[in-house]
């Protein structure tokens, strides 16, 4: 019996821009089980980012219920939401969103900084382990601007892992990366998922979505398709098939 981690029912989100009402979500229902790896696809303005914000407890729906880890999030106030985010959700963004002029290790420590139960020794240890998990143990003291895009995103992944969240929310995680680096990130995602992490990923790249376990497609604020992938791509193998110096080859 699969355990449902995320459950949304008839989610409606309406923005008001002057006199105009924008219907970003028009009744979305979705269940995500523990251990799922789901890719949300759709064109710009289809409502996938709005859903992502609501799922990430950064925004509230106009109507509808949202249960995360058994809790009706709608009943929470702003501060409770913040605490909930800090404990239950790991975020990965398209533009990495690392703190500038702050070392990789300190960036990874950030979510634990706002958790009273973690002391500084434990915080450093856990942050270092998370960095090790994404293969950046040797770059712990590097600043973000000393790291490549792929490395920065791996630091961001480490940051999203460090609080042991029930779900990882990735908003276009490969949007700023080249193909090879994107596949490397997908390799990390797949290995995290294999170890039991639940991942919700928004993307508009069809090839990236194929690394997930199932795809949800949005159009005009509604889900038009929700299906498990029959053939799932394996990132490690795809990486082997890529030309080694693909960039140079293209230039020639």
């Amino acid at each position, binding site marked *: 019996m699969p355990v449902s981690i995320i459950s949304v029912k008839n989610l409606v989100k309406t923005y008001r821009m002057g006199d105009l009402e924008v219907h970003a979500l028009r009744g979305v229902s979705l269940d995500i089980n523990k251990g799922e790896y789901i890719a949300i696809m759709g064109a710009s303005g289809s409502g996938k980012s709005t859903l992502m914000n609501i799922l990430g407890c*950064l925004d509230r729906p106009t109507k509808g219920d949202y249960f995360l880890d058994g809790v009706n999030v709608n009943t929470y106030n702003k501060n409770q939401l*913040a605490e909930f985010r800090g404990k239950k959700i790991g975020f990965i963004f398209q533009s990495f*969103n690392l*703190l500038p002029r702050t070392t990789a290790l300190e960036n990874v420590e*950030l*979510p634990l900084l*706002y958790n009273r139960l973690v002391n*500084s020794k434990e915080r450093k240890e856990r942050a270092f382990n998370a960095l090790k998990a994404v293969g950046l143990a040797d770059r712990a003291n590097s600043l973000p601007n000393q790291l490549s895009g792929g490395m920065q995103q791996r630091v961001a992944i480490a940051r999203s892992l460090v*609080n042991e969240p029930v779900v990882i929310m990735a908003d276009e995680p490969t949007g700023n990366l080249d193909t090879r680096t994107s596949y490397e990130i997908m390799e990390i995602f797949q290995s995290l998922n294999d170890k039991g992490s639940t991942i919700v990923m928004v993307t508009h790249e069809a090839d990236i979505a194929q690394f997930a376990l199932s795809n949800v497609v949005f159009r005009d604020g509604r889900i038009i398709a929700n299906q498990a992938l029959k053939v799932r791509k394996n990132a490690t193998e795809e990486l082997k098939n890529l030309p080694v110096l693909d960039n140079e080859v293209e230039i020639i």
Partner: protein
Amino acid sequence: MRVSNLIKVALRSLAKNKMRTFLTMLGIIIGVASVIAMLAIGQGSKQTVQASISSLGTNTIMIFPGSSNQGGVRGGAGSTSTLTVDDADAVKERCDLVGHVSPVVQKRVQTIFGSQNWNTTIMGGLNDYFYIRNLIIETGNKFTEADMRAAAKVCIIGQTVVTNLFGEGSDPIGQTIRISQVPFKVIGTIARKGQNTFGQDQDDIIIAPFNTVFKRMMNSTNVNMILVSAINEESIDGASKQIKPVIREKHKLLPNDDDDFTIRTQSDIANIFGSISSIMTILLAVIASISIVVGGIGIMNIMLVSVTERTREIGIRMAVGAKGYHVLMQFLIEAIFIGILGGIIGILLGVFISIMVASFAGWPVTVTVFSILLSSVFSVVVGVFFGWYPARKAANLNPIDALRYE
């Protein structure tokens, strides 16, 4: 999140922008330093004035002749000579709050010793004069009773006169000087007193027995003033109240007549100067406080820029679990820290400036605990007050908007 973490985060972000932090602090530093220095200088000048007023003598009451009023034409103070030796004797006899009394006559005279000559003032007074004016005999002796009675031609001279007639460091005791052609024997010198409040050289003086000056050198039967000392500081007002009716009676004034004399106490003068320098001190402090407020606005300005510049950072922190309170505290602590550190540097700078002023101006510049407390409290309050608005603004940001901010 623990408070220690918040402080660490705030300090780290200040350390990342050292130059900006310092420039922000500068307003507070200058403000606090000027408050400290201004108050110290104000206090110092007040003390200087008070010291020089008390150098006039202790518990001194001065009785001056009053204004003339003849046929409706009123002259200024001192325009008539109404005080007599009898007035002084009556005051001495009948007022029990009065300690020493000395009638005083004075005259500008040319003095000659050998090839040197010098224009100075000769004062005729009783030995009481030395007590009242707080004059100390440095070398030699005071006048004897016999000197007084016989109107002996002896004198005691101030240091300026010593220097000008005899040369620096010479011993004039036993020498004879000519004062307005009359030979006087120098029997003593007065210890240096320096300038008084009004810039007069108190050492440029010759003192001779009252009768000597009064009978030999003056053409009047009146005295220039009567100097009185009260028995103690508390009795100054009481003594002047006792003196007034005595002199009115001696002068046979009717109840409706104005006084033909003026009584000034040392505390009158001290009060006037005290209140002048208090006003000056307050004025200086207010001006300096304005610069602290300007410094505070500087903090607010930079904090607002900082909040805008770090919108994304705020968004990231909020996304990973920071509550509004955490963000508020982070920025508030930054502002308070700028206030406190600026305050401390300002206090040190202010004390330094005070010491410099003291050594250049030769004033007793006093840094008071009050001024340090005032400016520390002020700088923290400024930090909180001007840090609150930007911090509040940061805390109220919507995490989605903050994350999207470019």
